[in-house]
């Protein structure tokens, strides 16, 4: 079996490539950016260089940090509700076909309607702004978890299900022993997508609510800075948002590896 597998590079090689190569690209781009700004003497209010952005980030940290915390709170809470809601709904779908058939189209409608179009309405109807933001972030975040987990729960090995029937297993036992563990890789895949989407949902909702002026998340900081033409601060907030997204993605990738490394093909490193 091992004969037809192409020889993988050694582990140290691939780790060096995985971290070193993107890092090198990033550093080169930043240096080129800084050089371009300096050589062409582009004024900071049009395009600030990376150094000036970094300086702004440090100087304005006292206002950026609370905004970051604010956005993070909405994102995390929305993701939590999406996980609980998406997972429970998937279990409900898997337990009765008619429930899945009657509710799934509405989940799809919720998913395909752009959040920017729904957000203003939600903000009108929900008095508490944090809860309004939460609902927006939840709407975008919950679908990947629901849809992936539903597929996972339904893809259990039929022979294993037969075996459970032979042993007289109850429905909850089949669910708990066979379907749920089998759905884990699908669920984690959904979680990785939803993590990023929850952040996007939170940011989009903040932008929509931004006019109301009461928000204090990172998107609000970007809006505020743009009104005042403080371009470096816009960039600083933008970098924080991307950084947060990357961090969310990396932590779920790590979680994925931790939970699946012993058994699932997606997380198993081939031996050379």
């Amino acid at each position: 079996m091992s004969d037809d597998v192409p020889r993988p590079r050694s582990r140290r090689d691939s780790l060096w490539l995985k971290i070193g190569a993107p890092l090198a690209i990033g550093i080169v781009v930043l240096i080129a950016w800084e050089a371009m700004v300096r050589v062409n003497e582009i004024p900071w209010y049009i395009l600030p260089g990376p150094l000036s952005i970094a300086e702004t980030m440090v100087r304005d940290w006292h206002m950026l940090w609370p905004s970051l915390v604010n956005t993070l709170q909405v994102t995390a809470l929305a993701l939590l509700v999406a996980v609980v809601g998406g997972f429970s709904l998937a279990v409900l779908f898997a337990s009765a076909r008619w429930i899945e058939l009657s509710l799934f189209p509405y989940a799809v409608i919720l998913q395909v309607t752009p959040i920017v179009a729904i957000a203003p309405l939600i903000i009108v109807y929900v008095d508490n702004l944090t809860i309004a933001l939460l609902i927006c972030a939840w709407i975008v975040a919950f679908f990947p978890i629901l849809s992936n987990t539903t597929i996972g729960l339904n893809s259990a090995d039929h022979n294993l299900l037969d075996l459970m029937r032979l042993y007289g297993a109850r429905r909850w036992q089949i669910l708990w022993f066979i379907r749920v563990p089998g759905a884990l890789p699908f669920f984690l895949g959904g979680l990785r997508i939803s993590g990023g989407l929850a952040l996007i949902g939170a940011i989009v909702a903040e932008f929509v609510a931004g006019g109301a002026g009461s928000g204090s998340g990172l998107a609000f900081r970007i809006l505020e800075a743009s009104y005042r033409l403080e371009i470096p601060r816009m960039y600083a907030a933008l970098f924080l948002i991307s950084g947060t997204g990357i961090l969310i993605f990396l932590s779920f990738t790590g979680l994925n590896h931790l939970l699946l490394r012993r058994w699932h093909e997606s997380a198993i490193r081939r031996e050379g």
Partner: protein
Amino acid sequence: MPPLVTLSGVAKRFPSGTLAVERVDLAIEAGSFVSLLGPSGCGKSTILRMIAGLIEPSSGRIDWPGLTEAAPTGAHPELGFVFQEPTLMPWASVADNIRLPLRVAGVARAEADARVDEAIRMVGLEGFFRSFPRELSGGMKMRVSIARALVTRPRVLLMDEPFAALDEITRFRLNNDLLALWQQLRWTVVFVTHSVFESVYLSNRILVMSARPGRIVEDIAIGAPYPRDDRFRVSDEYGNLCRDVSRSLHRALAA
């Protein structure tokens, strides 16, 4: 003594309209090793699944006069089933895979541990308690699957071409180990196979089936004494028996 299980006029037509099995009358004695031998698609797996209660016959009936208590519909605690694929839970260790039927039955932890231990020793997988299925070879995975079937201490073991996907050397070894276990524990085995050689080596009775719709066309007793081992495999007696059964199979296919 009444037979363990009887099939009377059993037929199975699938919803798609395919008639898989027709007019099967059969009595299986307790303690026997019975092989269902036939070409692929002849309905031997269907018969096995009906005996297991996994699918209902379209007509006819299946009775268990040899079991003390009538088995409740669906659940058959006295049956063990082994599929062609190992059918293991990839996320669970060897021990947890074997423990599954006991967890379903709610057997207490200490008792379950002892029984899992016993089953692992029976199939010769000591030292692989904590391994995961993907770390095992095909033959070892099949051993885990057999251990899981044995852990409930069944009286009947139903096996659906369990060794068909294994290489010949591994298959010979598992054949021998299965026979040794059968002689020691005296359960009844119903074994589905399309291999003449395997069925002659293992069983004391071979039911030869026709092509679809499957019927049992010959019922052959294999009188060679147990224990059978690698000497039996190279004996003239074995060769002659294989020739006879091959002829029967040819006749069955022509019929």
